[in-house]
């Protein structure tokens, strides 16, 4: 072998050299093959073979509030008379003062408190409300049908006493039919009689140190005034259309409304305010802001027959400023 080395030194290598050569050959091919494989996979990706092209990149983020029910979307409204009723109901819901003007005594709409057209969880969504009635209500100590419940909204939240007709729509009025058709449609597929996640407004534990309108004013000025105005009267666009609803005063809900109770308002605020930043306030901030807002004067409670104090005793237990003295004035007298 070694003697031959001189002759074939050029073509013949030692086993060690052979081994090195083989290793490099394999290495180069493996490297090339690996790179080629990368090319192929990347191309497969380009061509969409490795991902589902049908599904748009949505829902990347988990829904803000985890709730089990998703109401149908706008485009699912059926055609025909039922669909027309749903659309009328929706129009009333979104623009109550305009489309049920005979029965609205302030500048609010249903959708001011029931966000996303009554869809949003934790803002008393209609799909959850629909399956909760008829039900017994402590407020009027009787079984309420859905119509009764809506009537309550008109009476208090929409301050119907100040409307052209001076009251909520009479029983069986088309306003009820249309609104209920809309709500029924929103609840398509919702389980009846079952407590649904996201129903109503969340109930916030009262903070240990209670709540304080003075602190609430600070919260309000920092977090709420930019939209609702430092005077709480909301804001309008250049045509005078209401964009941000008034929170107190003659154009807001009256003393009988659920939102006039601090605990209800605190739950709503905590979950939904500032708009788009739900759950960003602390519980304490939510309670304080609610206390500030609900310790302002607003239209009188239509249930008041005698004195404010009597009515306060009969109808305003718990977390309400009705009848209390704030800033030297007894609240509940109502606005002009």
């Amino acid at each position, binding site marked *: 072998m070694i003697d031959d080395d001189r002759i*074939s030194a*050029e073509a013949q*290598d030692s086993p060690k050299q052979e081994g090195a*050569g083989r290793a*490099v050959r394999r290495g*180069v*091919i493996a*490297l090339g093959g690996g790179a*080629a494989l990368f*090319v192929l996979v990347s191309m497969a990706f380009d061509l969409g073979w490795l991902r589902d092209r049908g599904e748009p990149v949505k829902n990347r983020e988990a829904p803000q509030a985890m709730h089990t029910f998703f109401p149908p979307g706008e485009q699912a409204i059926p055609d025909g008379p039922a669909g027309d009723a749903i659309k009328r109901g929706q129009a009333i819901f979104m623009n109550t003062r305009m489309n049920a003007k005979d029965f609205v005594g302030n500048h609010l709409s249903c959708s001011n408190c029931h966000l996303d057209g009554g869809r949003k969880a934790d803002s008393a969504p209609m799909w959850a409300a629909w399956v909760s009635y008829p039900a017994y209500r402590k407020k009027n100590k009787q079984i309420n049908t859905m119509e009764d419940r809506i009537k309550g909204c008109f009476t208090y939240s929409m301050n119907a006493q100040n409307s052209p007709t001076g009251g909520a729509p009479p029983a069986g009025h088309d306003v009820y039919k249309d609104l209920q058709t809309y709500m029924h449609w929103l609840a398509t597929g919702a389980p009846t009689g079952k407590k649904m996640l996201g129903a109503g407004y969340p109930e916030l534990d009262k903070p240990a140190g209670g709540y304080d309108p003075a602190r609430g004013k600070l919260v309000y000025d920092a977090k709420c005034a930019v939209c609702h105005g430092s005077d709480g009267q909301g804001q309008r666009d250049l045509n005078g259309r209401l964009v941000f609803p008034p929170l107190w005063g003659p154009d807001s809900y009256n003393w009988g409304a659920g939102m006039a109770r601090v605990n209800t308002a605190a739950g709503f605020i905590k979950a939904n305010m500032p708009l788009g930043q739900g759950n960003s306030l602390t519980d304490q901030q939510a309670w304080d802001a609610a206390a500030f807002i609900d310790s302002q004067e607003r239209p009188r409670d239509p249930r008041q027959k005698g004195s404010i104090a009597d009515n306060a005793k009969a109808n305003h237990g718990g977390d309400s400023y009705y009848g209390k003295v704030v800033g030297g004035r007894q609240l509940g007298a109502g606005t002009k």
Partner: protein
Amino acid sequence: MSLTIGLLLALSFVVSLLALAFLIWAINNNQLRIEQRHAYTIFTEGEAGQVDDPTAEREDDHHFDIERAGIDRVSRLPVLILVASGIGWLVLGSLFGLVASLKLHWPDWLDAQAALTFGRVRTLHLNMVIYGWASMTGIAVALWVTPRIFHTPLRLPRLPLIGAALWNMALLAGAIAIANGWTDGEEWLEIPWQVDIGLATAGVFFVVPIIVTAARREVHHIYVTGWYYLAGLCWFPVLFVIANIPYIHSGVQEATVNWWFAHNVLGLWLTPLGVGTAYYFIPKIIGKPIYSYSLSLLGFWGLALFYSQVGIHHLIGGPVPTWVVTLSIVHSMMMFIPVLAVAVNQHVLVARNLWALRESIPLRFVALGALLYTLASFQGSIEALRTVNSVTHFTHYTVGHAHLGAYGFLTLVLFGAVYYLVPRSTGRQWPWPAAMAAHFWLVVVGFLVYFAALTIGGVLQGLAMLDATRPFAESVRVTMPYLQARSVGGSLMALGHLLFAVHFVVAVLQRPAPHPGATVLSKPAVAA
């Protein structure tokens, strides 16, 4: 219409593939024999490496005393003149490159002169190193190697002298034009076409002697280096002339011509020069044959078939027809095949003889250059993928890649070739072997820093630009440290070039040694 084009295109690609398949079939069936008398060579599969080529036993088939034939003496003057010019342009070009690099992080430096604005300095750098250093030195090496592999002295040895003078003058004129803002305005084609006529004419003086020498060769078989050189010398003049004809195209057609040319300068001119050179010097210095003739064939024809159509991958996502872009992307990927073939052929030989790297600095340059060719080509193919290109396009990453090819590969190979040929051509030894090693480490470390900085910086820059929520300023800010690092690397490289140039001048001016040395190695090998 698009469907028809797509179909046509797929068909034309199939034609390329059929050509490739035919080639592979022909190789495997010994249709492309080295010589007529090998037609009966029985080639047993699975016995790779074991087969004794009948020629291997006939010693004088693969040995030829060039010195005795006086071949180097004939080519000496043109080779030296061209190498000297090349090195001159290299030093000048790297200084301009360094200035351009520094300007990217010292933007207010040297801003008072129009000739020294970034847009011109950078352009001067490119034209000097490509048309000055790489082309002239590449031609010098080709002029030196071609007669050697053909066992016959260079014919018409005076023509390259005229060519070199003309080329230098034209390039100088082009550089002055660019410095003064007179440019054709397209990348790689900045030299005004009027000046290009001089370059094209000079090219004739280089091409003719080599082709005549090849025609008068004393060997029957053309060694693989010869294929690359001859093909490159056919391709480049055609490319250069077509791309520089003025007033034919405008707008986007012009852009496709531009990148067809610019990439083919790399693929069909600089790459053949570099690969051919590596194919000669690696086995020559090691003294062992190349791994496989079949792979040589595959590598060469694969390069011709596929490299010629990759240019439009510089316009991915741009205003050019989809089918041209896709065609270029596909061909970029197909480049894996010839690159693998060349890689196996060259790296296996080096890997089997690692001892030679210790012994020979020229081999170190050439072998590292060949390795970087493989990497640059793989990188280039992958860069052409749409997904990758979205990130790397328009960024410094591309600059890093271009330097991996033109510097890491070609320039290192040329350094090695120059180190090898100067003693044999002039009879003068390199006076300072340590300077060669210093040069090697300066440029290798410098280039490593350079390449790593631009690659990382480029990717970060590209990712910033793809994210709408990050302002454009961030794509600038994020690259700053990497641009500074690039200047550091570039300085090391430029320093190495200066050292190289000084060493070359000293070597050439010194008194000739009696004999360039009995061995191909820079210092006599000591056998145990």
